[in-house]
């Protein structure tokens, strides 16, 4: 619904469809997507919860500067969803991983 398959200046969108997992659910993506853009295209805005108050957090700066969008990708903790390309079969979990769960 939020994916721009057509654009008045940029034209039609190409790219190979792939899929990945976030928080236990499989989502579609297009090769070249970042983890954050693929999730947003599926309507997923919340990427983690704040440590103390448990408030939802999503994309903020979009350039890897603010670390608000950190997630765990294939077991690697504190990865920035906004600058990490999504890959077919990738397993993403919200927020950073607890220390003992890290590989």
């Amino acid at each position, binding site marked *: 619904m939020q*994916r*721009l398959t057509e*654009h008045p200046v940029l034209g039609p969108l190409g790219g190979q469809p792939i899929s990945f997992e976030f928080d236990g659910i499989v989502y579609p993506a297009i090769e070249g997507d970042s983890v954050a853009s693929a999730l*947003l295209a599926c309507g997923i805005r*919340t990427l983690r919860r*704040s440590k103390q108050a448990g408030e939802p957090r999503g994309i903020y700066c979009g*350039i*890897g500067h603010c670390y608000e969008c950190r997630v765990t990708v294939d077991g690697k903790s504190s990865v920035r969803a906004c600058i990490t390309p999504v890959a077919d079969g990738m397993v993403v979990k919200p927020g950073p991983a607890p220390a003992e769960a890290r590989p």
Partner: protein
Amino acid sequence: MTAFDVAIVGAGPAGLSAAIAAAEAGGRVAVVDENRVPGGRLLGQLHQESKDSWWIGQKVAAGLGERAAAAGVELFCGREVWGMHPGWFLALDGGDTISAPHVVLASGAAERAMPIPGWTLPGVMTVGAAQTLTNFYRVRPGQRIAVVGVDPLSLTVAHELKMAGADVVGIFLPPLSKLSGQGGHPGHNLGYLSGLASLAPNAFLRAAAGLVRNPVARKAAARLYPESGVPVLGVPLKLKQSITAIEGDERVRAVEVTDIDAQGRPKGRTRLLEVDCVCLSGGLYPVQELTGGCAAARIDELGGQVPLHSEEMETTLKNVFVAGNVTGIEGAKVAMAQGTVAGLAVAARLGLAEPARLRDAIASVDDVRRTSPITFLPNVGEGRRKAGELWAAAGTHQQAEAQAWA
């Protein structure tokens, strides 16, 4: 440890241009960027340059990337620089080190935070994030979007969101506060728009842009500004309303809109406007995380703290150069011109470039600046002049110190 002639931090327009200049001259060049995709802020850029030509940043980025690769530049994309140590050595994430006698720091700009109540809700993001999502990743950040903050970047992005089919309900002022500084003042914002004269299709804004040098006229324009706003490129510019809070539980549901007077003071009336996305524009500032060892100055006309540098873009640290928005907020074309200067300056040090080529490149930076379609900061020329004076003073001081040691 991998050795190069020059290590460049940042694969945006400045860093890639520096890499191309140095590598095409014959230098061994490494470029490091924490984003896996090279291009920096180019990736999101999309605006009309003339009647039938568009600046499509991602195409420019792809072109620069291809040219760099063809010249033998080694790109370390998706890698972080954790530290920079004299010599020079760049410590990368995971323990790798790049060594090079010359460094170009092209770390670019980040957006100032605008912490209005509710700003951490999913659906609230910077205009820069919205721009990259829309134009590069081709995902609309929302269906009904409010833009907060009035500056050349926010107006451009509002227009891009509109082009992408979003309903942009308006471009609003931030609340008047210590944090937003003058950003919440309608008269100030009219002044800010002077850099946009060429982008403003609207007679009122063109007139306003012409009036801004006169403070009395600016006040009058602020007073006469219509309550409903004025459409700019199809988006209502609301200089008489500010967003005072963002509402929502798990995500953005609405913004709280407050009517303000010509001085930016709230007039009491507030209402909720339903939106699913809010784009904040607090303005860009130069990122200085790696320039700590260079003499620097805070120059507001350039967007904040900047390293002092020579015409050849060298800082007070020998063989450490800078280029692009790290030296002050300007457009991509200026960044590219500065990057070319830094790359040629390094090549000249290596005996690979003619001094005349470097001189030409230096001269072209000002030409590019003069003909830029967008000026992000209204007094950037004044800022560059101040920085130049401070450099001259620092240079004299350094010479004196060098003589004292001799």
